């Protein structure tokens, strides 16, 4: 277990400091729960602003917050804009599911990567297309046009989904690519998960991508996706955890798209908390740095208990170990902040 190095004036806990974080709106429900219970047990207030991953990163770069949270690792330009090295600590695992409105279907719709790319590229335009029928034997598919629903606002969810499509389809990679907003070849845009969900609910024959937690909470139908090993996987906390149970790179920026895990759901992704490696910067006292590291350490350990109830997948032991190592590499004035204790 990692705990605090008691080498400094951190014990002045009488002072009421609070931490400010901003970023991923997808993480917000989990973070709210975590931060509330952290405040109950440790008395440290955490103010988290759910402004979106990109907003969190730019606020971190401007050094107006103590930590950021993002569904996507920082890109090259953001790295170059950042005044110092930023650590990525994996904090939870999420998935993007394909929800659809086909009430005549009794069974769960099964989709393959190629069909998925074909649908979103606008090449498969009818539900009774032979490519879809081949994946769903014994299912009568309606003679109905496909309506694609996608996010209209820039979002980490879109980035996770388009990264997956870029990985499994060369045509998608060259024609559309990956990003928080892309040039959609087909379909309608809805603002936020609720906007996309609204379009799907209203339009007979619609299919769109939303976050798992949102789909579960709103009891929406979603499809099974064929993964690398050829199995059709239903997105569940178990199948996302399976996808995330991989050897971690040292920087924590592991991609879970199109996972090798046989039981893993292929459109899963880590979500990261972002913080500066060197915590000694302007207007950032040692107490804040220590408090932040203590909080993050709690989040990847005890905090994980809150995941499943809110439809987030808890981190695998591999990811927790990697996160610990990353947190230990954070320094204040060159000195490590967290030290090993048993």
């Amino acid at each position, binding site marked *: 277990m990692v705990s605090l190095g008691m080498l400094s004036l951190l014990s002045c806990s009488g002072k009421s400091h609070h931490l400010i974080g901003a970023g991923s709106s997808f993480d917000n429900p989990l973070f709210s729960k975590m931060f509330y219970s952290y405040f109950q047990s440790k008395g440290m207030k955490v103010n988290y602003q759910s402004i979106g991953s990109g907003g969190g990163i730019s606020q971190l770069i401007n050094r107006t917050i103590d930590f950021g949270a993002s569904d996507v690792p920082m890109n090259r330009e953001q790295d170059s804009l950042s005044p110092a090295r930023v650590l990525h600590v994996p904090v939870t695992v999420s998935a993007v599911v394909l929800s659809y409105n086909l009430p005549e279907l009794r069974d769960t719709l099964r989709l393959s990567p190629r069909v998925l790319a074909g649908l979103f590229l606008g090449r498969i335009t009818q539900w009774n297309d032979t490519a879809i029928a081949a994946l769903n034997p014994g299912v009568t598919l309606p003679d109905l046009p496909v309506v694609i629903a996608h996010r209209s606002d*820039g979002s980490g969810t879109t980035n996770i989904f388009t990264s997956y499509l870029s990985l499994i389809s060369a045509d998608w990679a060259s024609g559309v690519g990956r990003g928080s907003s892309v040039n959609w070849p087909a379909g*309608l845009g809805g603002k936020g998960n609720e906007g996309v969900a609204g379009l799907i609910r209203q339009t007979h024959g619609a299919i769109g991508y939303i976050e798992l937690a949102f789909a579960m909470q709103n009891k929406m139908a979603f499809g099974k996706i064929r993964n690398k090993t050829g199995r059709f996987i239903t997105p569940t906390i178990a199948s996302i955890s399976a996808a995330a149970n991989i050897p971690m790179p040292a920087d924590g920026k592991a991609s879970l798209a199109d996972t090798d895990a046989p039981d893993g759901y292929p459109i899963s992704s880590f979500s990261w908390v972002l913080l500066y490696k060197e915590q000694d910067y302007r207007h950032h006292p040692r107490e804040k740095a220590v408090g932040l590291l203590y909080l993050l350490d709690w989040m990847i350990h005890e905090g994980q208990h809150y995941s499943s109830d809110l439809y987030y997948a808890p981190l695998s032991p591999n990811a927790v170990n990697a996160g610990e190592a990353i947190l230990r590499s954070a320094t204040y004035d060159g000195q490590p902040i967290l030290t090993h204790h048993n």
Partner: protein
Amino acid sequence: METSLQAPVIPSPAVKDTVSIRKRIRRSFRQIRMESVFKQTLAIAGLLLVILVLGILLTLITQSIPSIRLLGLKFIWGSTWNPVKDVYGAFPFLLGTLLTSFLALVICIPFSVAIAIFLGEYYPTGWFADVLKNAVELIAAVPSVIYGFWGLAVLVPMVRALEARFGVDQPLGVGIFSASLILSVMIIPYAASLGRQMIRMVPEHLKEAAYGLGATRWEVIRHVVLPGTKSGLFAGILLSLGRALGETMAVTMVIGNSSILPKNLFAPGNTMASVIANEFTEADKTVYLSALIELGLALFLVTVIINIIGKKIIDRFTNE
């Protein structure tokens, strides 16, 4: 009390009490000072507003320089908006903004003019007029996100049924037409209330003269009221156009948010304001952000141009 503004007061030899004269002089000077302070406050307030507008324009221009440098005029005429490849063509959004706003205007004109005439000429007072007046004002007070929800839940399915009857090959409900309908409802109060005030301002004796000559109510409205209030009605409609151009939330919820050039009025599209609101927070590249700010600049300029044209037309009407 004597409050003479003709200061300074020249002491007349008839007044013997010099103390009272000095008092009056002092008060006069205070009045003068008060006057100039008031004038300066007004001037400063006005100047601040001008500086603010210029400041916004300047910020928009300087922040869009990276995008202008990369894309030049292609920004306006290009029809591809692809943040991944740094290709930003705003034409579909420009078209979407103008289409929805003008269509909304066309839909709203008969309603707003009718309400203005009804409240201005037929029933200026009474309980029914009060109810109607309050209802119209309430339309302006409802937050736009509520219009968006209402549009998505009620209007869009109706439009979808309409599209299915017209034989549109993919009846979606969302699109340019739904956005225009929502916008037209939102802008009615602006046009209607200004129009009503203008109609109330038509001199009573003109109307009485017309009635005296045997004109019917319709003839009075047609030949006396409307000619006199043309510019006012137009100004109200113009004001509402400004509102329609910049409306974001309600539009984004029902327009379908597609960057593809709309093929017909029922097709999904997008507007400049809606794109900015959707993509601004997650614009993760300098050029992307700059392109969105340039979109804001374009919206600013479109609004200015339409206002200038409107002023010109108002001037022509009033000089007739």
